């Protein structure tokens, strides 16, 4: 787990300290969210819904695959090549953890009234 905030937080229990750099990235979080809902998702579906180029999406998929959060399966349907992405158990846990920490972060920011840099 790696913190992604620019400034170190003195409070170790703060939710940002638990954010995973691999998951806490908008596109990769989107990939995990779609794969979680879809059970199994095709490369083209991800590309059109996340509005990415094939190359850019491939890079993000590689990061997630190397981290063991997704499985990539290549095959054919007729003559057409298709790539299917499935969330692993570790990916489901990582997504749930990320969402939990985001909710916690929102709650803390709203209750402590800390100015947030946007």
């Amino acid at each position, binding site marked *: 787990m790696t913190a992604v905030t620019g400034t170190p937080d003195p409070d170790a229990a703060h939710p940002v300290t638990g954010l995973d750099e691999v998951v806490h990235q908008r596109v990769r*979080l*989107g990939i995990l969210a779609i794969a979680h809902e879809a059970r199994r998702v095709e490369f083209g579906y991800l590309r059109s819904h996340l509005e990415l180029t094939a190359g850019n999406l491939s890079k993000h998929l590689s990061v997630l695959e190397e981290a063991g959060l997704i499985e990539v399966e290549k095959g054919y349907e007729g003559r057409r090549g298709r790539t299917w992405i499935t969330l692993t158990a570790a990916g489901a846990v990582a997504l749930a953890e990320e969402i939990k920490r985001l909710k916690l972060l929102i709650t803390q920011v709203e209750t402590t009234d800390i100015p947030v840099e946007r």
Partner: protein
Amino acid sequence: MTTEPMPAGGDPHRLLSDVRGLAHRVRVDQRLTWVALLVLAAVTLVGIPFDWFGMKLHCHPDGCEFARRGVLYYWPPALLLAYAAIAVSYVRAARARGVGARVLPYAITGAVLTLLFTAAWVAAALYFPSHPVRFASWMLVLDRLIAPWGIIGVPLLVLAWLERNVALLVFTLAYLVLVLLVLPMNVGFGPPQWGIRLGFALPQLVVGVVLLLGALGFRAAHRRRR
């Protein structure tokens, strides 16, 4: 399309909102509600002649005795085939769109309830001819729930939950009110001169048409969205 990498992290509100938005779009893309309703409408309408011609009817001066054998023989296999067809349609459509399907809990609930309805009707066919009973009004509602027209509504609630489909939930609740509380599915209706067979056929026709109209409505909404 963009070739620029999107910014890492971001506002947690926005990230959560993105996640919810994407999840909702996937659920919408997995839907094939109109096909489920169309198949159920077809099964209901095709079942009317089976009930009509399969009914054992004995009339004597005191009244008529009837046994709806056609319902018992037609509906269990028809419903099991219908759930299989709906499941296959969902899987194929979802696959074509590039996502997995979420229909299995619906099909399993439907199949289990079909077996329950069959067991209840077989038990009733064996028990009640020799033990005539006058039912309380709440038992008539329960009887309508375990009849095929009522029991197809319960898995639709499961489907509405799976799809997070509020429109289907509202449709199903209205359908269940119609079938359980409004239409006399298990006693028939109409003036006596119409006869018992027609009295049972008319509510089934209404149910079939309601399901068909529901299918057309969901189909129109589906096309508009795409």
